[in-house]
């Protein structure tokens, strides 16, 4: 019987080859960027765009009408370029209220709504989810996650019950910055989850060792948070010119370079970069189109950033 590692490596290389074959075509004209890169949620087969949107800091703007108006434009640009997955949390201040405000202003757009439950007490979980639903103005959440494993035992019970009643569609857990990975891995292996969220980017690649192979093995959707390492990747590399060979994977800037690295891992379902600027959103969503790196190109990308 092959080991988990062997299966994962074979699955990884096979998926990369399929992805590379399907995406090896030139980027089309500006008006028609070609097919949108979508990934399937393993448990249901539902397709979601591979680039989503996070809301940590960027949508926490309170009641300020000017700042809210800018976020409406940001979210509009996100939808116009094919995005649907929006991720938030009650921990993010007014982000959920502001997302709801933007969705109401934009209208006629159905997001893939993902938020989190973030309270140490199980008894407050249902109320918090109700509040989130009211803020977003959605009928139900597509994905409800347990934020940073906070009281995960209690909340998982609540979420599974909500899922069985059709009040949420998928259940997940999250972590970030590489915290509590051993416990995270154990929960992934033992609990009936649909999705997991953790940090993965071209510099922070610890997830490749255990979490990503385990997610592939368990059939879990993977949302990659901090794909730009909270913006640090730009301060680390933006002063360097983008290598000429980045055009081979249709990258038009460092943002797309970093995002295409993340979503080209076959176990990743979606990356959720966050931004408060329309031009940055347009840049990010550009990674949803064109060719993706294959295994060789991914290794070259890593070597390149490590050499800078």
């Amino acid at each position, binding site marked *: 019987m092959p080991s988990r590692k062997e299966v994962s490596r074979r699955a990884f290389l096979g998926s990369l080859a399929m992805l590379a074959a399907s995406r090896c075509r030139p980027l089309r004209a500006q008006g028609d960027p070609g097919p949108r890169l979508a990934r399937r949620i393993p448990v249901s087969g539902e397709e979601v765009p591979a680039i989503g949107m996070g809301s940590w*800091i960027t949508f*926490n703007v*309170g009641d*300020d009408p000017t700042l809210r108006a800018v976020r409406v434009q940001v979210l509009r640009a996100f939808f116009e370029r094919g995005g649907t997955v929006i991720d938030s949390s009650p921990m993010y*201040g007014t982000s959920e209220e502001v997302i709801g405000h933007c969705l109401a202003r934009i209208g006629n757009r159905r997001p893939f709504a993902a938020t989190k439950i973030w309270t140490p007490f199980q008894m407050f979980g249902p109320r918090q989810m109700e509040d989130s639903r009211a803020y977003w103005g959605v009928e139900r959440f597509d994905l409800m996650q347990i934020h940073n494993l906070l009281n995960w035992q209690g909340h998982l019970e609540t979420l599974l019950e909500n899922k069985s009643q059709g009040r949420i569609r998928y259940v997940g857990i999250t972590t970030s910055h590489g915290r509590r990975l051993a416990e995270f891995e154990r929960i992934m292996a033992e609990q009936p989850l649909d999705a997991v969220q953790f940090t993965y980017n071209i510099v922070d690649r610890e997830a490749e060792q255990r979490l990503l192979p385990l997610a592939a093995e368990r059939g879990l959707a993977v949302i990659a948070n901090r794909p730009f390492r909270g913006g640090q990747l730009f301060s680390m590399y933006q002063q360097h010119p983008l290598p000429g060979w980045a055009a081979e994977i249709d990258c038009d800037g460092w943002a797309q370079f970093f995002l295409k690295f993340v979503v080209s891992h076959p176990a990743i379902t979606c990356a959720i970069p966050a931004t*408060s600027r329309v031009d940055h959103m347009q840049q990010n969503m550009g990674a949803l189109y064109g060719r993706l790196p294959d295994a060789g190109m991914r290794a070259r990308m890593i070597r390149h950033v490590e050499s800078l």
Partner: protein
Amino acid sequence: MLPYTAEVLFASIAQYNRALWPLPPVALILCLVAILLTLRPVRGGNRAIGALLAAAWLWTGIGWHLLYFAHLNFAAPLYGAFFVLQGLLLAWTMARGKRRFRFDGGRFAWVGLLLAITAVAWPLIDRAFGMSWLSERVVGLEPVPTTILTFGLLLLMRGRTPLHLAIVPLLWTLVAGVTAWILWIPQDLVLPVIGLGGFGLLAWKNQRRAHRAARQDDMSKDRRAHRESC
């Protein structure tokens, strides 16, 4: 790990100031009067200064942190609790003992006066760093200038200053300094210096006073012994 940007922080301050109008100029005037009272003491002035300082911490804790900023920052309720604690400590300490705030021309008093004036002038400092007039932080209503005023008035306190009154302000200057560094609010980078320096000066002031009291005690003992021997 701050869930907001400097732009959002100052937009919130603008909304807060607009909602409180005309309280910001009233608070400024009251704090200016408190400083004048240390220069020209009047009957009941010390109690008025103590009450104003306690009210400033309670207001900032409840009005800013708990009722306003908590929507944007999950840590604000914790900060609010510490500000309320400081307000209660000030009120309790002022009620229990006779505390006098007076400018005596000494070096600690000069530093205290300078800090108190800086706190009242904080809106001008914010303006110099490019803030709009509505986003300027006002002493008595917002944490940063209130903390600076507190160090100023504690240094102006005659006699021994209870050091427990400077612990929360010291902690806040450290929190605000880290926030300033992360969000890049250059005018606030001076806060840890004010906090650590102010706390150090208060400790030094208390120590000098203790030495002076001990020396006076020794001198009076010597005089008594001399009289007895004669």
